[in-house]
């Protein structure tokens, strides 16, 4: 009986905390615009990890009219993949203690380089995205703005 009571008490007190944790983590989900305004990235979730994909490009085509491809991919066999729809942000996991999305990567199609990535929520509609090599000290930060639905 006391064991059952303990289980019930644990469930009562732990569920809201877990729910809050999940809600905090999911604040990253949405469509975001990097500061240069040349693309939109949609961040969604697979399992417990977050991924960002290019869903809009200001200049989606090359000069000859063909869609832009991932032509700088280090793996030659994947260079025919279109940039529109490409998953450039991968495997971010929310760390509840530091309130950051960590352990993931961000890919720069301009040079075919993958950087470590961490994201901090500044407010509900702004995130600070840092791409870095090795330690977070050596890197570049960009502020992305959430795309709002037109009312």
């Amino acid at each position, binding site marked *: 009986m006391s064991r059952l009571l303990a289980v019930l008490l644990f469930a009562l007190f732990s569920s809201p905390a877990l729910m809050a944790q999940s809600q905090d983590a999911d604040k990253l989900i949405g469509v975001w615009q990097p500061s240069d305004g040349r693309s939109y990235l*949609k961040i*969604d979730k*697979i*399992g*417990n*990890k977050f*991924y960002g*994909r*290019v*869903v*809009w490009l200001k200049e989606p085509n090359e000069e000859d009219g063909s869609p832009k*491809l991932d032509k700088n991919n280090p*793996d*030659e*066999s*994947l260079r*025919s*993949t*279109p940039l*529109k*729809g*490409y*998953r450039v942000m*991968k*495997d971010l996991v929310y760390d509840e203690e530091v309130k950051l999305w960590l352990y993931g*990567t961000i890919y720069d199609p301009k040079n075919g380089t993958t950087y470590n990535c961490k994201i901090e929520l500044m407010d509900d509609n702004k995130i600070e995205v840092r791409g870095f090599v090795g330690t977070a000290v050596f890197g570049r930060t960009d502020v992305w703005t959430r795309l709002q639905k037109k009312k």
Partner: protein
Amino acid sequence: MRKIIFFLGFIALAACSADLAQLEVEKNLMLQGEMLFEGANTLSMDNDQDLITLIEEAGLTTDQVESVGISEAKITLNSSEKSIAESLLLQIVSDNNELITLGTLNPLPEGAIVDLKLAEEIDIKPYLEDSGCTWVLDLNLSGDANEMAIKSKIKLVVNYKEN
């Protein structure tokens, strides 16, 4: 004396090392998604066969398996899927392994069954042994679809040590 030790060492090494052999296993996937709109979309399937299940028919153990590659990935599209699908990108992810690309195809050629262009040096053994293993198909669409269930047939190449 030194020669004898060297010879005995060589014999011991040869006895311990096992030859690598290959086993080909076919795997069927059904990648599903709903409420799909024009643009970038995702279909997925939770992996239903872990490494043990895949190799048990061949009487192998996971300790024997060195790596699991992919030699072929075919995607079957029906006429309505084909009419709006522009490009395909097959990936795999699991709880403790990052999302990797297995194959891509852009643009799509004629025909209902298409062959993906495979990535170089794939080893999905860590994924098949991990929890949360998921097959992910990203596709760009030129139109909307309520839902899609796309069939894929993959040839896995299991490299294993012979006992």
